[in-house]
């Protein structure tokens, strides 16, 4: 009984193989194959099971996370997509929000719509705001559009009608007609993809779905056939952005739900680690080469939201991407990573990122022609990285080149000596991340001071302790297998599906019966996806949430209802739950009428268990954990001091390390400051209690 998690990233494809009987975890990495990403997946699965001596027939599940959908949107490598849209409203896609996200930058940029204006076909039909029909669907016009789409060489169509969330029948009928007339077309319709009020966002979401569908369909097909050809007879699941998994059938229908699934899996594993360690409130922090991602975990679950922006075109600026409405784990993304370039900003002060040297040419110390100073250069100069042990020694770094880049690039102009400039680069990034977490947490009413930070990714462990200290967080956790966190996270993701529908109504205008029936429709829709995957009704857990507000407000508060077989009995207590939630956020209750805006139902199958946890194969303690010492920068003294260096893989459960210390693993180095105390737990996680 084995399960495999596979996560495709930009550079590496990561694998985790879990043996349920022995609670053993084996991990593996290989290079991603951009031409056909399924190649790396198949090769890696084969290599991993051969290495571990596991027969393919014993593997029951493969759970897959991928950035394929995101990348297809960023690189515009999707199908030629058309749009069938309510007459008079196709131009909404060019109009967007009619708002600037920067008041001063005249050269502001927006992404062009995925469906250009000439590929939008308008049809007469109109539904009113209350779901009644003003103009019936012109079926002949829909039929005629099929020929038009063929002439335009369109392969996928997004059907986008106004108020379809209130009355999906027109979209459904149009889809039926198009399927008959042009069976080879891929069709997505807006009420099916995400029945949310606000046409620009819903329709953009639908076009993203349509645009990526043919590509994702072919990809899954290749993957299924490839896995079958090596003898895999189990089930393949696709990770969704919300932290749940989808069957391949569902994923093919809604590829938009697989955006950003890799980072979601990482946050999911942080949450799981926290539950295992009885630390329910966490800041999950992942920093790689170009970006840092953060998520908050409250009471053991990552905080979620229902919108995400993809393919930002202007310096990661919020507002410069395509707005997509899907359930996602609520992530901060900032342009800060190992490759982030340090330079002067318009004020004449030091700034790091969001420009990145990427992997090629990469930081100056890679010796591949990069000359601009980056974060990795700074961490090398500061002694936190070892020039001879980068990626476990697989790549030699050039320290002199790093020093030179920092001195020339920023040191001279800013009159900073090289070491001060290097520490400045390091500290600025820590500040940027701390600031982003602070704002994110405050906006969500999350008291981060009582939380712990879980750090992973190539650059995360280098900065985690210092960021946590800035936030006055008492603890940083460096989980075992941090280099393949997302692949591990895939293994604990339950089969789940979430639907949300806009239906704005005053609390006084409904009763328990209509309350229950609105939910019941959503529950039936969502459960169908799990039933088709073979989950028994008794194993389906239903969670219900409402977006509510005082009438007249523009921002809603999400109210979670307690678990119950049906929503009816929850009706009476609902207004009080809202008042409590509002009070918790704003320390005030108001005497205003209350309304419900959005209704959300998530159905969750049984969560796969990692039992009491797992140990990595190949980790064995040894007495010689301490490798020696090296000179590294001590910010308190403002100079280089001797730091003990440890081999993470040689540390045994129960061992303690007192800072300052550098604990090296293949993908990163944990920087432990003076006064911090690290304990190795039973599963080889490093738990750092931070000094002040």
């Amino acid at each position, binding site marked *: 009984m084995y399960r495999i998690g596979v996560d495709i990233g930009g550079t590496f494809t990561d694998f985790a193989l879990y043996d349920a009987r022995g609670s053993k975890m084996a991990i593996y990495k290989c290079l991603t194959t951009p031409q056909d990403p399924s190649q790396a997946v198949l090769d890696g699965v084969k290599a991993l099971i051969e290495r571990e001596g596991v027969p393919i027939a014993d593997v029951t599940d493969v759970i897959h996370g991928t950035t394929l959908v995101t990348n297809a949107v960023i690189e515009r490598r999707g199908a030629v997509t058309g749009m069938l849209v309510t007459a008079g409203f196709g131009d909404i896609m060019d109009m967007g929000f009619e*708002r600037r996200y920067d008041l001063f930058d005249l050269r502001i940029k927006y992404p062009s719509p995925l469906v250009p204006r000439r590929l939008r076909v308008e049809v007469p039909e109109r539904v009113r705001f209350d779901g009644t029909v003003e103009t019936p669907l012109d079926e002949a016009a829909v039929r005629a559009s099929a020929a038009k789409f063929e002439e335009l060489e369109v392969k996928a169509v997004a059907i986008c009608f106004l108020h379809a969330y209130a009355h999906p029948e027109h979209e459904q009928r149009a889809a039926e007609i198009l399927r008959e007339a042009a069976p080879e077309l891929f069709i997505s319709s807006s009420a099916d993809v995400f029945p949310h009020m606000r046409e620009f966002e819903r329709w953009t979401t639908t076009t993203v779905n349509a645009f990526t569908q043919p590509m994702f369909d072919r990809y899954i097909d290749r993957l299924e056939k490839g896995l079958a050809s090596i003898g895999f007879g189990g089930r393949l699941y696709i990770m969704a952005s919300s932290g749940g998994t989808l069957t391949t059938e569902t994923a093919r229908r809604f590829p938009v739900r697989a955006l950003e699934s890799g980072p979601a899996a990482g946050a999911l594993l942080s949450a799981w680690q926290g539950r295992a360690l009885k630390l329910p409130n966490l800041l999950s922090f992942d920093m790689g080469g170009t970006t840092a991602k953060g998520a908050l975990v409250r009471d053991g679950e990552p905080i979620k939201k229902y919108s995400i922006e993809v393919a930002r075109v202007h310096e990661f600026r919020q507002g410069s991407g395509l707005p997509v409405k899907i359930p996602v784990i609520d992530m901060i993304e900032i342009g800060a990573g190992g490759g982030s370039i340090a330079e002067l900003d318009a004020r004449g002060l030091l700034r790091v990122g969001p420009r990145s040297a990427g992997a090629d040419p990469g930081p100056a110390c890679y010796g591949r022609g990069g000359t601009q100073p980056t974060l990795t250069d700074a961490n090398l100069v500061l002694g936190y990285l070892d020039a001879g042990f980068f990626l476990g020694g697989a790549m030699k770094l050039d320290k002199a080149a790093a020093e030179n880049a920092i001195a020339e690039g920023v040191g001279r102009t800013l009159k900073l000596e090289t070491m001060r400039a290097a520490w400045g680069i390091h500290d600025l990034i820590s500040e940027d991340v701390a600031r982003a977490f602070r704002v994110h947490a405050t906006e969500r009413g999350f008291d981060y001071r009582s939380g712990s930070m879980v750090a992973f990714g190539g650059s995360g462990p280098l900065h985690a302790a210092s960021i946590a200290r800035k936030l006055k967080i008492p603890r940083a956790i460096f989980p075992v297998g941090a280099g393949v966190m997302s692949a591990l996270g895939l293994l604990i993701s339950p089969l789940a599906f979430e639907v949300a529908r806009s239906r704005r109504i005053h609390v006084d205008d409904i009763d328990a019966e209509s309350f229950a029936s609105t939910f019941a429709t959503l529950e039936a829709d969502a459960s169908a996806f799990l039933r088709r995957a073979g989950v028994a009704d008794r194993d389906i857990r239903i969670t219900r949430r409402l977006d509510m507000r005082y009438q007249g*407000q523009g921002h809603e508060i999400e109210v979670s209802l307690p678990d119950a077989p049906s929503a009816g009995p929850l009706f009476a207590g609902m207004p009080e739950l809202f008042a409590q939630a509002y009070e918790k956020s704003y320390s005030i209750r108001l005497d205003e009428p209350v309304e419900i805006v959005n209704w959300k139902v998530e159905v969750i199958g049984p969560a796969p268990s990692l039992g009491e946890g797992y140990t990595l194969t190949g980790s064995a303690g040894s007495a010689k954990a301490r490798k020696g010492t090296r000179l590294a920068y001590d910010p308190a003294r403002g100079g280089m001091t001797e730091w003990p260096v440890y081999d993470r893989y040689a540390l045994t459960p129960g061992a303690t390390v007192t800072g300052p210390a550098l604990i090296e693993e293949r993908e990163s180095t944990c920087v432990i400051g003076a006064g911090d105390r690290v304990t190795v737990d039973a599963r080889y996680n490093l738990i750092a209690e931070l000094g002040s």
Partner: protein
Amino acid sequence: MTNQTFDAVSLSIMWDRLVSLTDEIVSTLVRSSFSTIVYESYDLSVVVLDAEANSIAQGTFGIPAFIGSAPVTLRHMLKRFPAETLKPGDIVVTNDPWLGTGHLFDITMMRPVFRKGRIVAYTISITHLPDIGGTGFGSAATEIYQEGLRIPICKLYDAGKPNELLIDIIRTNVRVPEQTMGDVMANVSCNEVGGREINAFMDEYGLEDLMPLSRAIRGQSETAMRAKLRELKDGTYRNRIKLEGFDGPVEFAVRVDVAGDNVAFDFDGTSGCVRAGVNVPFCYTNAMALHAIKSLTLPSIPNNAGSQAPITVSAPVGCILNAQPPFPTGGRHAMGHFVTPLVYGALADAIPSEVQADSGMMNLINFQGSRRDGRAFSTLYFASGGYGALNGLDGWSTLPHPSNMAVVPVEVWETLTHTTVERKELRTDSGGTGRWRGGLGQEVVLRNDTGHPLTILGMGNRTQFPAKGVFDGGDGTLRVHAVEGKPVHAKGRLEVAPGQRITVTEAGGAGYGNPRERDRQAVAFDVANGFVSREVAQKVYGWQE
């Protein structure tokens, strides 16, 4: 610590942190507000000022109208309530257009920040209130007294104790007392958060006094701004534009003196005030001029007193850009926004590669009526004209400039008002032609399906004077308001009967450079997508298929 200096790293870190905490105050304000104009359109501002009333950080989000107004308001407030008399928990308030931000709708609230018994900073928040009594948001008044309640500088809280009389007066004078007081209280709590955050910030970095940091931030900003201004060619630049007043055209004039690293704006030659709520108090003129020069030179630098130091702005007392009481000012933005194109036009020869051709600008219409179920509503409809082109960048379709807003989605608008949007479409050929094309305007048709008469209050501009192109770029098309197909006064007050249609046609943005030099592929793309008609492509762009 008084002579403390900061290196390029420390200053960067502390400065960013200060701006970020100001943004946190904004976030508190927005999330507890009751008016769409605050939470959707960010018609607000939050400013942190030092103990000497210099602004050192302003919230990133907000609209340009509030740049530079807070320090002036604070100085007026300190004249009335000297610093040494202020107590912890005091909140000072005013909505006087001439002491604040130019119209009665904006309330300005100030709270001193105490640390160990001493004032170390002030926080100021400003929001556009849902209502302030009088005629309502629009340009219909002929005197300021008709526009609503005018609150002189006074204390809303005295050492933490609320001024019940003032609260009662506000409640009694406005149409929506709950929402208005809700927004007033949102301002109170965000200033409290501000005081807490500033003290936490000072704890974290071991500061007992903000003045050294303030001096460093302002000094660095001023140096950066001066360096940028030195790149402008010295000289005197002038511009004069015509725009619609209420009963006839009005002229704006500007003279810009660029000398070394100083820039002076003077609006001498501008017409006098009009008997409609579109007159502009000087604080607003000043803000728009500062926004114009900043957007042309150093857009990314945070706003503070330092970056404004090299710039002076003046306008003759009594002209429409320095309006005096009792002239009404309710819709001052409808005029004040033209300061930006006026300044860009003047500086076109000084920095040709940076200026923007004129934009079609935003349009605000106040809708008052009842929904089908009889519930009353009073709300703002937004739609935007096209964005002016820049060297190297086509103007975006339906994007506002210089002010900002967010459109209310059709689905939300219909649900809120029970009116029906029949169509919302781009206007082919509405963007000015050019090597870089102007952004397109739009046409929106709204039908009164509420079953009740509807009152609309317009504040539209560009109905006679289009967005002007630069360097041989073409003009944008004009804005039109019409009822049942018949054009109506865009600044008037109208009754719309049940079943009648209102058509709002938004102005196009202007073009930059000669259209014959436009990239041929770009012309072909515009034709294929219907942004430009075949005829115009052939005739103006010299395009051949």
